[in-house]
């Protein structure tokens, strides 16, 4: 598992043996009487890609929100690089190296494409290096390069999603979290988005991606967790899960353990 990630992750060789990059233990999130997450535990190792799949309302977004600091959990612990993240505001989480691409493509519609990217580098002091990265991004995605001075709201859905991911990367995160990156996109565009994720991973960034699109999520991830009713029903690699009848059952909440739901 560690062999895949390659060089970029820094001290990941030792990190894997010592402690995972992100560690979640017994995380519980409640909205009034409704329990969205019920004692969830999982780890993301340095350089790993972890995906969480599950239907609507499974608790996927709550998980990311609790890690990022936009939702206050009722219980449990989240540690990132060995330090607790719970109770930290969102803007602080980013500074520690967790970037969140929220659901629904939050482009800053009336700012230009270039301004959107520059905003992504807000927390960085190496402005010149950030500017080079932005130019590099425009070379990789010429469509966006051509529209650098156009307002971001005029981009297509797929272009907006790429822009938001690139913006998140400009904060130089150690961990990138994505909430439903393929939602509402055509399959061809989704391919591009996932190709982008693959190259991000090559650069050594760990990824935690939440998806309804289970097939996609399985293919990209080192390990996939099936979340339903706030509980992890099943987990495994693509080889273990794809074609496994229990996987579908777990996804739809029909597995033996989930039968009570």
């Amino acid at each position, binding site marked *: 598992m560690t062999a895949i990630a390659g060089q970029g992750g820094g001290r990941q060789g030792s990190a894997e043996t010592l402690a995972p990059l992100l560690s979640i233990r017994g995380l519980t999130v409640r909205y009034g009487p409704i329990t969205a997450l019920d004692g969830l535990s999982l780890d993301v190792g340095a350089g790993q890609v972890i995906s969480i799949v599950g239907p609507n309302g499974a608790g996927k977004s709550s998980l990311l929100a609790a890690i*990022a600091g*936009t939702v206050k959990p009722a219980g449990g612990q989240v540690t990132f690089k060995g330090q607790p993240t719970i109770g930290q*505001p*969102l*803007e602080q989480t*980013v*500074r520690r190296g967790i*970037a*969140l691409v*929220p659901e*629904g*493509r*939050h*482009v*800053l*519609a*009336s*700012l230009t494409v270039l*301004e*959107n990217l*520059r*905003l*992504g580098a*807000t*927390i960085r002091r190496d402005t010149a290096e950030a500017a080079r990265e932005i130019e590099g991004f425009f070379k990789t995605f010429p*469509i966006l390069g*051509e*529209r*650098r*001075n*156009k*307002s*971001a*709201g*005029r*981009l*297509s*859905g797929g272009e*907006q999603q790429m822009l*938001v991911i690139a*913006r*998140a990367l400009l*904060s130089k995160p150690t961990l990138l979290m994505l909430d439903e990156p393929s939602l*509402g*996109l*055509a399959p061809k565009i989704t391919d591009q988005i996932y190709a982008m994720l693959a190259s991000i991973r090559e650069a050594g960034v760990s990824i935690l991606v939440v998806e309804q699109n289970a097939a996609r999520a399985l293919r990209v991830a080192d390990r996939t967790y099936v979340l339903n009713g706030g509980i992890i029903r099943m987990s495994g690699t693509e080889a273990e899960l794809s074609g496994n009848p229990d996987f579908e059952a777990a996804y739809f909440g029909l597995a033996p353990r989930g039968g009570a739901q």
Partner: protein
Amino acid sequence: MAASISDRIGWRPAARDGLRRLVPLAALVGIVLTIVLLAGMGDIVLQRRVIFCLIHVVAVVGLYIFMGNSGVMNFSSAGFMAVGAYTSALLTMAPGMKSTFLPDLPAWLAAAHLSPLWGALAGGVMAGLMALVIGIPIMRLSGIGAAIATLSLMFICYIVLGNWTALTGGQQSLMGLPSYVGLWTAGLTAMVAIAVAFVYQETRGALALRGSREDEVAARGSGVRIVRERLAAFVVSGFVTGIAGVLYGHFLGTLRVESFYLDLTFLLVTMLVVGGMRSLAGAVIGAIGISILTELLRLVEVGFVLPGTSWSIATPPGLGDVALAAAMLLIILFRPQGLTGGHEIELPRSKTSTSGLATTSGNTGTANV
């Protein structure tokens, strides 16, 4: 697609980017300079009207620095102008004048006699300090909360200054300010204010603030500390607005607390909204446009004879205020981004490609798949 093709046959972005970025600033400074030069050829009455207009430009630019970049309502401009005006007045008036009008002034203040420049800076700094102190608690507010808080701040300034008789003369006029503000003083200050606003809006902090204006979660997700960035803008805004107050006092030579109240507040907000609160060009054009409109309406109110005929036209009094409100209403209904549509003045090519579609960009953003 058409836009990207015109991009390719046009200039190469990187080459002229540097100079191009200064075009919006140069255009606005050019407009103000032209107005000053033209007014210089006119009579004294016209010049006084133009000076008033330029002071309003400074005040609206000050308002824009905070409200335009952050998108948070601010109704406290008049209060900052009052603080700037009285601070400078008390520090620059001749001690003899002060002992006549303000006999109860503390001794050190009664003796203070700064040069106009230092007095003006002190006025701006005092307004900036007020922004800092008040801003710390209220910068977390946005929407209706911010509107009420800043309006209250303006009322507080009005009531405190109006009742602090020892310092301001209370409800009486304070007279005897050195009236050093002429056409060029007002014009140059307006140009400097525009430059300050322009330099500020090019900073990373201002970009972060505009990001938070568009989408608070996305901005925080990029690490923007919204309260801190708003506070910085509020302080710069307070300083510039305070300077506008200084000009006001030293132009008229007299001060009344009454002048810094609701009328002025709504005039400044109207100027910014009509011009377009999302661009510096909007602030400047709004201030100039509304000044011209009110001036024309004042002429109509007084009554004039149609040239070449014997018809004289005079409208009922109060038309000016009604027209101002109507202008605001029409803009909000039909062009919510203001006359400039939230754009800066750019060279023709990029203007044609952005202005047509820009007003709809906010909506199409989420609708595309």
